[in-house]
């Protein structure tokens, strides 16, 4: 009996917070450099930004508290924000999953090749992401007169009679931007999948073949994907942060503001207020709404990914 209480006591002792912290001292030391810097350069700025979203702040005068005013204006009075929100959601829903699957598919196919061919193919597919503002190529393709490559080809084939001003016609802006975004999207997720595929144990494939896996697709679903779940999670988060934050390509190809705001996204709207109108309070409110949107999506996607390979 006495022994039992002694055991219980020591178990209790092991469960106290102080003890657990002291026992893992080395963990905290290892994390210290990163998290101290992270606190100063990321956590603090984010907290300050969220606080600023409740103020009027023009970057010259000291911010004045305005309560929910920015948020109320955002949802009730700002039609352009609602347009940009709609565009961003379309963007995210279309490009997010497609580009995620493309990243995975291409990484997986490239992994089938060996040696130099594989390195070369990886470079080719990663090229749009590594070449800086590579999407400028699309300016040439989409030039609005008949000398633009796309117009030229379509006219030659007899599909079009006259040139189309691609980026100045409302109904083409969003679809074109989606295509360009997909083309650009084999970036972070893609490379991490390539690296992830490298860490899948080769003996698993042999074992699976003995267990009756018959073709490459079954192998992908039952063996490869479950083995690289951590990378899939990572890729999903990167995909969300990319597809919700589309702005650069829209500004470069369609302009900001674009024709009738056809290419406006939440982030172009934010940039408009942040760097053109110097209304940082309002811009911070936009950023906070976008943040909540991404967090929600992330929760949903992570839940779905847990079921891969079942």
């Amino acid at each position: 009996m006495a022994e039992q209480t002694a055991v219980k006591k020591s178990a209790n002792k092991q469960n106290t917070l102080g003890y657990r912290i002291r026992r893992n001292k080395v963990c905290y030391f290892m994390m210290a450099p990163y998290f101290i810097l992270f606190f100063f350069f990321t956590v603090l700025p984010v907290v300050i930004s969220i606080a600023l979203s409740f103020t009027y702040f023009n970057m010259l005068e000291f911010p004045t508290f305005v309560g929910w005013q920015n948020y109320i204006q955002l949802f009730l009075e700002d039609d352009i924000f609602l347009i940009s929100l709609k565009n961003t959601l379309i963007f995210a829903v279309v490009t997010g999953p497609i580009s995620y699957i493309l990243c995975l598919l291409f990484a997986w196919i490239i992994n089938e090749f060996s040696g130099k061919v594989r390195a070369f193919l990886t470079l080719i597919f990663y090229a749009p992401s590594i070449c800086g503002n590579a999407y400028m190529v699309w300016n040439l393709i989409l030039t609005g007169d008949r000398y633009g490559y796309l117009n030229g080809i379509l006219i030659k084939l007899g599909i079009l009679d006259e040139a189309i001003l691609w980026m100045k016609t409302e109904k083409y802006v969003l679809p074109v931007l989606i295509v360009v975004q997909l083309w650009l999207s084999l970036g972070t997720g893609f490379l991490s999948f390539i690296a992830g595929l490298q860490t899948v144990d080769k003996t698993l494939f042999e074992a699976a073949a003995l267990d009756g896996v018959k073709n490459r697709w079954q192998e992908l679903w039952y063996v490869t994907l479950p083995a690289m779940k951590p990378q899939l999670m990572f890729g999903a988060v990167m995909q969300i942060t990319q597809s919700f934050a589309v702005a650069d390509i829209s500004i470069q190809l369609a302009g900001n503001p674009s024709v009738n705001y056809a290419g406006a996204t939440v982030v172009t709207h934010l940039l408009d207020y942040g760097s053109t109108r110097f209304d940082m309070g309002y811009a911070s409110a936009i950023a906070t709404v976008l943040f909540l949107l991404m967090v929600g999506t992330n929760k949903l996607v992570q839940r779905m990914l847990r079921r891969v390979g079942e």
Partner: protein
Amino acid sequence: MEKKRRRLFRRKPRKLNRSMAGNGIMFFIMFICGIFMALPLVMIINNALKPLDELFQFPPKIFVRNPTLENFTDLFVLMNNSWVPFSRYILNTIIITGGGMVGHVICASLAAYPLAKHNFPGKNLLFSMVVLSMMFSWTVTQIPQYIIISWLHINNTYAALVLPAFSFGMGLYLMKQFMEQLPDALMESARLDGASEWRIFWTIVMPNVKPAWLTLAIFQFQQMWGNTGGLFLRSEELKPLQYSLQQITAGGTARAGAAAAVTFIIAAVPITFFLICQSSVLETMTTSGMKD
């Protein structure tokens, strides 16, 4: 010795579960898509080699007809005329890009190891903070960040660019995900042999996640290489190469040739780094099979 020789003479194992038709289709898809993806590369290389009259040709052609290195000689002349000696820009870039990359890979990996393989109070909170931070728009946090950097008195020093780079969120997340896959038995046996956590980290964990940190190095190199110093560096002597190269292209139409050469160099450096890292990513895991 015996084992080594056997591995040397082993015949290449036949790949399981692969049909010829499937391979053919895969190759075809890759070929078509590859053409599209290679477009910017092809264009940058061709533009850099075009003489001025071809650069201004209308309608523009993708392929160069009379390749020349004129653009590069023009660029070198411009570089030699710069106010700050060009070698200084190169030094700045090495410090900023190299420092930001190495520091980030080390800091992020060190922090990722306990998060992936240990249990301690506050673990989930810290990790979710990092993941969530990636979703907050960077444009908005820039202003508070500037205030904090001035407050720390590191404004207009290399530290203003390099220190924040140490703590980017993505690297920690990437490293943690890869470390999570390592079997616990690997570390347990080292622990029984009396190795300290630091030792386990350097000699067991890091070698086993080499593809991860090489990939992270690629990302971080690209990120830091693209940095022009922006808000945080005001002195001309501290600016990186990217900045001075972009200044050359800002010369407008008169410098179109040099600008094409600049675009080439700006892309060529990270591509070279990419190829070096990527080829080591691809060879590591074929040799080690430590998984459970």
